[in-house]
């Protein structure tokens, strides 16, 4: 897999050619045609360092092709929500804002991205489910964003550690995660390393675990279902047991990327994360990387099967208050043509929303030049089938995403793990807050 820091000539020619072939489907306004145009892009800083320089070059060269001055601002993930909120409040900012999750809360400030999906459909087929359910507002029947890639969240585990306790192939299900994790900590003082923090990895980890225990937040109709059955309480009690008997206090205090650093340093036995964790290990410590194995998500309970939420759902938004909407739409639409190069530049982190853009994905997964062994990543072959959208079993609605971005779930879990609240009380309090959020969004048309 090439370590593409720049857009290759071939990629760029392909991008330009495809754009030319299809032609600008958005009619540029007279104002836009009149002079040097500008396009300001904000995006989350990618977890794979090689990606951002590649994207910067892609954007710059797109600008040259379209007589547009393009600037890209990379924003740390933990500051994305605040930055977007500030722009919305000010009614000005960037033209394209790229989130690592569905920005459903901002739907009132986004153009309808349906036309972008329609345009892309001509080349790559109908909108895939994960994009549809991540970017569609079923109340106003518009798409508030365009999703071009996502990142699966496999289980990373230290194979050498787990082999010591008779589980060389990893824990497989939540029961073995607990029993094996406890064994590892008791005997070898290696704790389990799942993130329980109000960070992206903590959020994804805990939402994944709740979902795997059938402790859903909202129904498909956006009705609050959390704590209206026993699943939330059961999940919280499991988490408490896992933390107390197999965990470490560090799990409550890690800053963004903390669980990655801990595992790369050999301090923990497992983590739920995007493959940027393993890529970091490959870059920093190949020997450790060889001992970190990937596994499909743990088998859930109560009929949930094997499942994990996407670590990232890359969603580009063209603000409705943006000054250069035509160029912004064109850029976002053209972005899909570079999915293949984006996959390579992200070292396989970016799973294409449209499979047709990277048709040899499985072959690439099975022959990864950096992996040891080279077929280590092929466990992700079925990732699309075990990865639902954020908001599942419903859509990524404003209410769900406010719960997500407010870190309600990590905060609830932390109260339990710190002994500040019983699982029952914490679940009840969280349910009340979720209901308040849902009611608020019900009032907003």
């Amino acid at each position, binding site marked *: 897999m090439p370590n593409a820091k720049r857009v290759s000539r071939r990629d760029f020619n392909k991008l330009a050619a495809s754009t030319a072939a299809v032609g600008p489907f958005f009619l540029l306004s007279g104002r836009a045609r009149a002079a040097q145009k500008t396009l300001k892009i904000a995006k989350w800083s990618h977890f794979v360092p090689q990606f951002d320089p590649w994207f910067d070059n892609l954007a710059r060269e797109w600008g040259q092709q379209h007589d547009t001055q393009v600037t890209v601002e990379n924003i740390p993930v933990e500051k994305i929500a605040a930055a977007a909120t500030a722009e919305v409040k000010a009614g000005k900012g960037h033209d394209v804002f790229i989130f690592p999750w569905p920005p459903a809360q901002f739907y009132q400030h986004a153009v309808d991205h349906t036309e972008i999906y329609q345009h892309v459909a001509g080349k790559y087929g109908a909108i895939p489910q994960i994009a549809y359910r991540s970017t569609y507002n079923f109340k106003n029947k518009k798409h508030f964003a365009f999703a071009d890639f996502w990142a699966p969240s496999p289980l990373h585990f230290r194979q050498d550690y787990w082999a010591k306790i*008779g589980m060389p*192939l*990893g824990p*497989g299900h939540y029961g073995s995660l607990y029993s094996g994790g406890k064994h590892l900590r008791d005997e070898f003082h290696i704790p389990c390393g799942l993130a329980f923090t109000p960070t992206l990895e903590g959020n994804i980890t805990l939402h994944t675990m709740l979902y795997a225990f059938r402790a859903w937040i909202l129904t498909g109709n956006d009705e609050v279902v959390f704590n209206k059955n026993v699943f939330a309480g059961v999940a919280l009690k499991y988490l408490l047991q896992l933390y107390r008997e197999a965990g470490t206090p560090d799990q409550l205090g890690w800053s963004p990327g903390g669980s990655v650093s801990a595992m790369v340093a050999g301090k923990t036995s497992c983590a739920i994360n995007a493959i940027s964790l393993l890529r970091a290990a490959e870059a920093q410590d190949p020997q450790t990387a060889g001992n970190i194995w990937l596994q499909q998500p743990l088998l859930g309970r109560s009929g949930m*099967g094997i499942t994990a939420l996407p670590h990232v759902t890359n969603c580009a938004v063209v603000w409705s208050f943006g000054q250069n909407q035509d160029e912004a739409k064109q850029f976002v639409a053209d972005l899909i043509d570079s999915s293949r190069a984006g996959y390579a530049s992200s070292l396989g982190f970016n799973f294409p929303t449209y*499979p*047709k853009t990277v*048709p040899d994905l499985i072959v690439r997964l*099975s022959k990864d030049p950096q992996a040891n062994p080279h077929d280590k990543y092929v*466990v992700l072959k079925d990732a699309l089938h075990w990865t639902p959208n954020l908001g599942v079993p419903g859509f990524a609605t404003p209410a769900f995403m406010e719960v997500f971005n407010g870190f309600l779930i990590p905060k609830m879990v932390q109260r339990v793990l710190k002994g500040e609240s019983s699982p029952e009380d914490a679940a009840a309090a969280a349910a009340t807050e979720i209901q308040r959020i849902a009611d608020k969004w019900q009032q907003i048309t």
Partner: protein
Amino acid sequence: MKIIREQTSPVVVGMAMMGLAFLTAPNLAAAQTATPTPSSVTGVAAFNPPPCDYNDTFYMDNGLTPTDVVGRFGTSRLTGPPATGKQVNWVADSTCSQRDPDRRNFRILAITGGFPDDETGSPTEFITILGFVTNQTAFETTYSRNVGAINGGLDGDQQNPGETISIVNSANPRSISMQNLVSNFEAYPAPRQRLANGKIALNPCQADMVSPLAPAQPCFDLSTVNAVFTPNLRQDWRFATNRNAIDGSDNNCISNDPTVCTPPGGSGTAPPQSDSPFGYFCDDLLGMWINSYFWYTVDPANPGKVCGPILKQLGQQNGLTADGTPIVTTGDQLDNQLEANGCAAEGQLAFDGSDGGAIWLVCPAIPDPRAGAISADAFLDQVHNNNGTPQNIGLTLNFLSLQRFGVFFTQLTAAQQSQINTAEAAVN
């Protein structure tokens, strides 16, 4: 996906009706014969072979060490559960390997019935529990075998390096570990919770499986494979039937776009690959399942205000087990009605074998139980009530119909159904 259950072609039905004239009285005494009798299905072409154990090579080719298969039919468990009385669970049969070179010459007579996971609750699933896996270490970490190599020919000029079947780092040639693959297929055993002293146990004895919804003691034990023997189950099995088509009609591709997915041997422009999730008949070639044990967390005699009405309604709908708990036939009943309200729980045994017991089953479902797959000497392994009657009469009727006529009970004529009813009454 082509659904074979309860969908019978007019041809098959017609053949069955034509065969009615040749119907002989069921020879129950012949149930122990070791002679293969796939052609005994009356009036229906017996094109489906009865089940046999896999040979050692096939186990190893698929990532499982055959000597680590506990209670393997053909090697052990000739008698005893599920066989009763003079029954045997398997017989020597030299035609097994002739019909399928991946099989060894032991034909399975014990046919276990169960429910599919399609929310119908239909008693239409038939499987053969060939053995049990009790530790993750049973999955091979390394293995290699060359097949098809040719070195010779008349003039010594025929050369073919063959293909290598390999397991490297526990992954098969497709880089998939058998453990990961099998975890996609859940089987739901329901261990008996009524203890010998008459008390009901509301949790397993395995500490890592204890549900917080009920007291840990008294407990029922899952530490040996005997826990999933039929006499120790309170109801028949349910199997998660998330399967791909067995006839290749979907080509194991989710995408219809030939540039995205090209099935093996297909003509698409994409590299040969499958973009579909694991399929039972396509990937899980040993027919393995992971056991998701489920149990009640409330005493049926005192279920409480929340669970009481649910148990009552389910009991009226499905009947009761010998424990006095309702029978569960669908995922919705277990997940959304019982577990959601704190009336039941589920869990799996630890992969390191520390819990003991059957973590996985080598338990291939019979792809198509019609037309000869249920031989004349096979017997049905199903859960019985305390009075000895079958808990699910539908399983019995389907089994006998398949055995005698090669089709499901609902596909029989009224006269044939009458005969099956008579046979059922005679058996039970």
